[in-house]
């Protein structure tokens, strides 16, 4: 009797204990003032919240809202063709889905947002994923699975209306251009004047070509073998990079300026889009997938083993909007900056891409959609920890542009001392020597400071040895998968442009017609290349203006996805539960519209594009005309993003009203029910 009672009460006690642990961790983080807290508390707050949310909220979504039904055959089972529609083990597919959604965003965003202190980033990563990001990914994965793997754009067109479909398409293209520009800028800033880093990344091109040739001609289809060779060569290049950086002739060869690197990126992006996929794109994709999963796991283990101390305060004075890394108050800009780790519109593209075609049972979408996004948020928390282990003085010395800090360690110390943080004389020079770099001052973009944080965590496991090697390993890891995104993104953009262009002139839409490939690739590359180049020559470093634009665009795409989700839920007769997507939608609309408005119209020239253009016009800068043009272009882009959000929300709200007031029949375009041959609950 007692045992039976225990068995009933015990689970509740366990869940209560997990909830109490999470609440305690948040209290410790929020109330710590002055005394240092350990990384363990950040991890505890995050993991306890994930576990509770997965157990209760994701279950509620699965059972009540979506009514997932394992008796219903999934597209993978019904359409199994041994190629893209393949029933796949849920844990394997989890790894596959995670590798597709995780990129540089969740690492870079929290690093930049750390100028507000570690607390805003931690809170938004955890709260945002639980009620926003994971819900979005889960919803879109579920909806796409019920529609044989249709894309977000197609669903917007078919389930909302053609206006929303067109707006979604334009939003995706615009976000792609800005995303590629800002990511390329992160890489340029990380490799600028870094012969060691540039040598490794340059080596990845011949390594990829070799792998491509191996997998196609020497041993067709032997991907694992080719990847093992590729990784061995990559690690050799990593070690050899030290000699390159020490040798005067070689290091001169691999020391490039920002503008030189941005031209190289533009040329590379063009070729990656035009060349056959087996030669460059697919081998790089395999290489970066293995490196990504391996490094994320290693970093998680290293953080658990070392539990590094947190040196960053919970909140800094920059929450008031005076921050030197990027302008704007903690609301809305912390949310815009964190971006992908909490909620990312981009994931809606993957969740309506390959993953829905591989799900074996409907109930598994809870693990894939909701659980996959929780893992991405966890990666974001690791970036928060990496940022917070840096001394605040070092963090600001690395992430604030030279236009603010001045060119020397002394000038940087003086500026940083005014903010109330300390930077010892010679500290940055010593750190640069330790990391094997010429300088670490004003290395904006987030990647170098993330690499320093990662190097000290990973190096901490082996008692701080080989820091320079770990630093360049981290740079390689980031640059490699950013370049994979640049390859893939340019190609996706090229296809979308060809599809849009076909409306004007039919032959342009033929995706394998060479003239069309060359023209559309050149247009996409020119689009992101323009913003990249302007970012590189911008005296304030470019990240300052481009990252917020990217954040706005990404959150805008999430708003589009949530509009589609809400519309379909209402049409399914689930209006009682429409708040699950409406609440994050309302929040995102508030955040993107406020941020967009401030970026365009704020009177502070550091924040508002138009105010900045006016202040440049009053001054006597040599390149004033170009700066003014770029400010106006950025303002126009931000306004266009806001217009797209408003159009999609209005088009969706009209549908909701028509359906709810019974003026329109609630028709959903799900694939018909077919009974699954798999045993339920097996």
């Amino acid at each position, binding site marked *: 009797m007692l045992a039976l009672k225990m068995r009933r009460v015990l689970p509740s006690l366990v869940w209560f204990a997990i909830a109490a642990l999470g609440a305690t961790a948040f209290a410790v983080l929020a109330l710590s003032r002055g005394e240092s807290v350990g990384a363990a508390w950040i991890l505890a707050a995050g993991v306890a919240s994930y576990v509770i949310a997965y157990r209760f909220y994701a279950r509620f979504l699965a059972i009540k809202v979506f009514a997932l039904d394992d008796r219903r055959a999934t597209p993978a089972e019904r359409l199994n063709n041994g190629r893209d529609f393949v029933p796949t083990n849920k844990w394997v597919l989890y790894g596959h889905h995670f590798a*597709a959604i995780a990129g540089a965003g969740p690492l870079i965003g929290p690093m930049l947002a750390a100028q507000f202190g570690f607390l805003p980033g931690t809170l938004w990563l955890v709260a945002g994923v639980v009620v926003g990001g994971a819900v979005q990914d889960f919803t879109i994965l579920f909806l796409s699975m019920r529609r044989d793997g249709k894309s977000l754009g197609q669903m917007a067109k078919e389930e909302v209306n053609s206006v929303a479909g067109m707006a979604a398409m334009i939003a995706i293209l615009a976000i792609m251009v800005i995303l590629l520009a800002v990511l390329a800028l992160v890489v340029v800033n990380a490799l600028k004047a870094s012969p060691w880093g540039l040598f490794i990344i340059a080596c990845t091109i011949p390594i990829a070509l070799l792998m491509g040739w191996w997998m196609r001609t020497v041993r067709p289809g032997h991907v694992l073998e080719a990847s093992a060779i590729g990784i061995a060569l990559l690690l050799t290049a990593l070690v050899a990079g030290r000699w390159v950086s020490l040798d005067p002739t070689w290091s001169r060869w691999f020391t490039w300026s920002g503008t030189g690197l941005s031209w190289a990126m533009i040329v590379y992006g063009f070729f990656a889009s035009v060349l056959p996929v087996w030669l460059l794109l697919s081998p790089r994709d395999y290489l970066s997938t293995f490196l990504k999963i391996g490094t994320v796991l290693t970093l998680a283990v290293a953080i658990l083993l070392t539990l590094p101390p947190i040196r960053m305060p919970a909140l800094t004075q920059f929450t008031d909007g005076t921050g030197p890394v990027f302008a704007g108050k903690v609301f809305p800009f912390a949310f815009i900056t964190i971006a992908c780790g909490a909620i990312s519109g981009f994931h809606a593209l993957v969740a309506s891409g390959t993953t829905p075609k591989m799900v074996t049972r409907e109930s598994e979408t809870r693990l894939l959609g909701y659980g996959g996004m929780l893992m991405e948020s966890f990666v974001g928390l690791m970036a928060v920890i990496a940022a917070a282990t840096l001394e605040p003085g070092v963090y600001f010395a690395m992430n604030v542009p030279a236009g603010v800090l001045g060119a020397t360690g002394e000038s940087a110390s003086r500026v940083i001392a005014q903010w109330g943080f300390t930077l010892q004389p010679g500290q940055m020079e010593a750190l640069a020597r330790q990391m094997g770099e010429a300088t670490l001052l004003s290395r904006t973009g987030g990647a170098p400071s993330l690499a320093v944080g990662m190097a000290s965590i990973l190096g901490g496991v082996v008692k701080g040895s080989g820091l320079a090697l770990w630093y360049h390993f981290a740079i390689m890891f980031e640059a490699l998968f950013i370049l994979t995104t640049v390859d893939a993104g340019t*190609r996706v953009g090229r296809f979308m442009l060809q599809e849009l262009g076909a409306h004007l002139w039919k032959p342009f839409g033929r995706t394998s017609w060479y003239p069309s490939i060359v023209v559309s690739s050149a247009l996409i590359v020119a689009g992101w290349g323009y913003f990249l180049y302007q970012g590189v020559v911008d005296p304030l470093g470019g990240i300052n203006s481009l990252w917020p634009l990217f954040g706005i665009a990404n959150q805008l795409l999430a708003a589009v996805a949530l509009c589609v989700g809400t519309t379909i839920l209402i049409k399914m007769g689930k209006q009682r539960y429409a708040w699950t997507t409406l609440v994050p939608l309302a929040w995102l609309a508030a955040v993107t519209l406020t941020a967009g408005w401030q970026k365009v119209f704020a009177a502070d020239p550091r924040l508002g594009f138009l105010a900045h253009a006016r202040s440049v016009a009053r001054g006597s800068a040599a390149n004033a005309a170009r700066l003014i043009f770029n400010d106006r272009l950025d303002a126009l882009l931000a306004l266009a993003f806001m217009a797209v959000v408003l159009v999609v929300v209005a088009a969706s709200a009209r549908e909701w009203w028509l359906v709810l007031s019974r003026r329109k029949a609630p028709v959903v375009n799900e694939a018909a029910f077919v009974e699954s041959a798999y045993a339920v609950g097996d």
Partner: protein
Amino acid sequence: MVRQIAGAPDYQRYLEHHAACHPGLPPLSPREHYAEFVTRRFGGGATRCC
């Protein structure tokens, strides 16, 4: 399993599928199968996130 996580092709699996679903037709060679697989998976623009 690692192969599937990375989204790599599986020739053996293809042969099994082919034998089950298209008996009588000659299967693709490893080389043709790989070429077809890569074009299908990456040709449409592999989706990779930020």
